[in-house]
């Protein structure tokens, strides 16, 4: 037996109270007599509160104690079920940001969802156990498995859904696994129109269609020369009616931007805003009366830092590729040309066919033909394809080589990993090992149309950006939620051999990062400014913001319930206590009260 309401056992405190009353506060009916001294005997009880005697075991005392015990048991709600028969409620909780939207009363869908789960847990009895699963690409077991609702509710207090639109299937699969055959699955979301809901899952939608304004895009770029910033924004009205709003930008404690904006129904408004340099951090927000979701109406942007790539060109003046390269380099931003090849991040050199693989160190190299050789050279050949491209290489992103005549192809004696090849000939490849390698272009641009094709600037630009990305420090400063953040550390500044992991900090939240030259931060689902720390030293900062046009559109949300088809056959625990228990208790208390009353009434005949 257990008690569903153990506080009811406090009623047992009435037992000593009754004993105390019978000890000290007995109130017998008065009877005037003459010759009181003739009655004085061992059975005499002194007046109230004067002396403690042995407790007289009277019928009234026993009945009152019995009534108090029955009443306490009644309040404590005794039950005889074993806990193993408790209902296991598996709640799958939509963790998308739209759950933070509010209705007209100010209550958020999140609050509604918690209330729904609380009611469901209460309806399943105090012995029920719950598991909480947050949806997402990687579902999270927020509470459980099979914990008491009070414990789960503590976890829910800190729950702030910020996820972008995602599939619920992984969470459903996890829930089904947790529920096994005896649990009840309940999917709590903000839209009843869900595809692929498992048959054994009940759906409760706590959402409703509400208007919303959201940032769709934000890009902050800085002119490397003037350091002036340029902010490109796009704001979307996710409702059918036109809305007026205010765009407000704050840097530090200073408001640097306040602009009224008008958005047509379902309209999108692009904005380009010039910003002064040196702001470091900018807070942007949209203020509108009916903006029901704050997550996508607020941005925190960090000012991008220049990441110039130093280019060294170690080519003869009459090299066929020199002009083509310079023409492309001049169109790419944030490049510096250096004379000393040792200072270059990307060094362009002539291609030597039988040159041994070199240790590039931190330097990227582009070896470009026509091939020269220290030994006897073979005759070059031209080819128009078909070209075999390694699409997995970022260097070939956007490169098609359509209609390209590739000339000056010669055999390469040193091992080269092919990126572009024709039959057995390697036209473009990587030589050497490690993240930074020598890019080989086995070509003679004097006889090829590649330098004049659209593929050429793309190819060179990819190479420059790959070089830029490999430089120490972050590639970008502003990311979207769930976007992979990757950057490299400068070995000259960070002890890569240290044992302590790096720290990723957001406000008061911290997590460890694996220390290495390349640091990869797993997708972050929470917006805000993150810092990467080596001990107490800040290595870099970046911001994560919410952009998801699909998730920001709240107009189509719809509340409702989809019950389980086999709800009546669900395996649940029996009721906490037999139905006849309460009437039995009440009847017993009534009988005791009547017997006690009659006993007191007929006490004249009491012959104790």
């Amino acid at each position, binding site marked *: 037996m257990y008690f569903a309401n153990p506080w009811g056992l406090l009623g047992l405190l009435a037992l000593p109270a009754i004993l105390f009353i019978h000890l000290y506060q*007995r*109130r*017998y*009916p*008065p*009877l*005037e*007599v*003459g*010759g*009181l*001294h*003739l*009655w*004085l*005997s061992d*059975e*005499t*009880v*002194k*007046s109230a509160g004067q002396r403690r005697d042995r407790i*007289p075991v*009277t019928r009234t005392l026993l009945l009152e104690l019995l009534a108090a015990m029955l009443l306490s048991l009644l309040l404590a709600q005794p039950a005889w079920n074993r806990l193993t028969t408790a209902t296991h409620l598996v709640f799958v909780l939509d963790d998308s940001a739209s759950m933070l939207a509010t209705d007209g009363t100010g209550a958020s869908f999140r609050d509604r969802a918690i209330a729904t789960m609380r009611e469901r847990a209460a309806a399943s009895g105090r012995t029920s156990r719950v598991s909480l699963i947050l949806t997402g690409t990687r579902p999270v077991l927020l509470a459980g498995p099979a914990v008491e609702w009070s414990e789960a509710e503590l976890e829910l207090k800190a729950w702030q859904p910020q996820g972008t639109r995602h599939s619920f299937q992984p969470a459903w699969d996890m829930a089904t696994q947790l529920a096994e055959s005896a649990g009840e699955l309940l999917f709590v979301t903000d839209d009843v129109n869900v595809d692929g809901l498992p048959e054994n899952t009940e759906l409760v939608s706590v959402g409703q269609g509400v208007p919303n304004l959201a940032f769709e895009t934000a890009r902050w770029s800085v002119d490397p020369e003037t350091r002036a910033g340029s902010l490109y924004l796009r704001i979307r009205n996710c409702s059918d009616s036109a809305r007026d709003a205010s765009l407000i930008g704050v840097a530090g404690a200073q408001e640097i931007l306040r602009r009224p904006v008008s958005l047509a129904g379902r309209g999108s408004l692009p904005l380009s805003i010039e910003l002064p340099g040196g702001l470091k951090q900018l807070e942007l927000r949209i203020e509108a009366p009916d903006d029901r979701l704050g997550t996508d109406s607020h941005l925190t942007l960090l000012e991008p830092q220049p990441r110039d790539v130093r280019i060294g060109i170690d080519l003869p003046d009459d090299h066929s590729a020199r002009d083509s390269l310079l023409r492309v380099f001049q169109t790419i931003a944030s490049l510096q040309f250096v004379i000393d090849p040792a200072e270059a991040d990307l060094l362009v050199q002539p291609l030597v066919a039988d040159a041994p693989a070199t240790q590039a160190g931190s330097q990227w190299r582009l070896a470009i033909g026509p091939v020269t050789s220290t030994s006897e050279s073979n005759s070059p050949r031209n080819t128009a394809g078909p070209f075999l491209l390694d699409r997995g290489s970022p260097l070939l992103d956007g490169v098609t080589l359509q209609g390209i005549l590739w000339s000056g192809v010669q055999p390469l004696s040193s091992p080269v990993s092919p990126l572009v090849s024709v039959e057995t000939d390697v036209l473009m490849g990587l030589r050497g090992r490690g993240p930074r390698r020598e890019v080989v272009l086995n070509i003679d641009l004097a006889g090829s149309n590649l330098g004049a094709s659209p593929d050429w600037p793309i190819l060179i630009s990819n190479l420059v950006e790959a070089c830029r990305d490999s430089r120490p420090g972050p590639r970008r400063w502003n990311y979207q939620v769930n976007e992979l953040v990757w950057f490299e550390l400068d070995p000259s500044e960070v002890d890569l051999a240290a044992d302590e992991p790096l720290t990723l900090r957001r406000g008061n939240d911290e997590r460890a990062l694996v220390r290495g030259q390349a640091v990869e931060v797993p997708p972050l689902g929470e917006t805000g400014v993150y810092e990467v720390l080596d001990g107490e030293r800040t290595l870099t900062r970046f911001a994560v913001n919410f952009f998801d046009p699909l998730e920001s559109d709240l107009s189509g949300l719809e509340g409702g319930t989809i019950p389980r088809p086999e709800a009546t056959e669900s395996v649940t625990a029996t009721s906490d206590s037999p139905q006849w228990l309460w009437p039995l208790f009440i009847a017993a208390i009534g009988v005791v009260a009547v017997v006690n009353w009659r006993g007191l009434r007929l*006490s*004249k*005949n*009491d*012959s*104790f």
Partner: protein
Amino acid sequence: MRTDAEVRRVAEQFQLGLPRSPVSGRAGELLGRGAGSSLEFQEHRQYLPGDDIRHLDWAAYARTDALMIRMYREEISPRTQIVLDVTRSMTTTGEKSRLARQLAGALSLMAGLLGARATVTLAGGAVPPRQLQGDELELLQEMPLEGRGDLADLVQRGQLPLRPRSALIVISDFLFPHDPVVLIRRLGGESSLFWVVQVLTEWESAPDALGGRRLIDCESSESIDLRVNAMTIQRYSGRLTALQSRLRESVRRCGGTFVTVIADRGLYAVCSDDLCRAGILRPR
């Protein structure tokens, strides 16, 4: 009390059971206990100096050569003093207080019918005790019995005016702490006729079980919580019986009569049964 039909009825049907033996009192219709001047010869005794020589039996002197005095029974009109306990214990029930008043009234009426002057002394109330005579006896009917005094204490302090050689009738429940031997000796030691009537209610005489009760002494207001059950009743009855035995013994030693009457039975039944049986009354 003459207005009380029950009292009148009793007074008409019964008379005081005064003994044939002499009692003391002023010269009257009743024969006294001592020698007197009546015509009824009582006995002889030797002459002592100072005796009335008119009572010398010269014939006996002639026969025996000894001076003998002829003793005649004294004719008296007896002084009758009725001591009525007026403490609150006499009011535990209406029957008890009424019977006590009726008894006092009836006995005083009967004494009056014999030519005796009856005085009802109210003991336990005001000090000195109030005494009712003649028409004042009518006040008995309305007089509240709410004295908080104590008959034993009154007697011990000599505040109860007892006339020697009078007929003394004490009406009380004697349910107050006292030593019966001392009390009775002081009460009836000098009386010529001594009757003690203990008035109790039926429950006081033979209580039944009431369960838990707060017993409050109606005189001292002291209280005790008590379960009135068979055991406590047995102990109470034992103490009451012992009290009555000692009262009876003490009264007998004083030449008196002790009787317990139950108020619930009513005046007539008490008089016709209990008091007649005890010899205090007899039918006319």
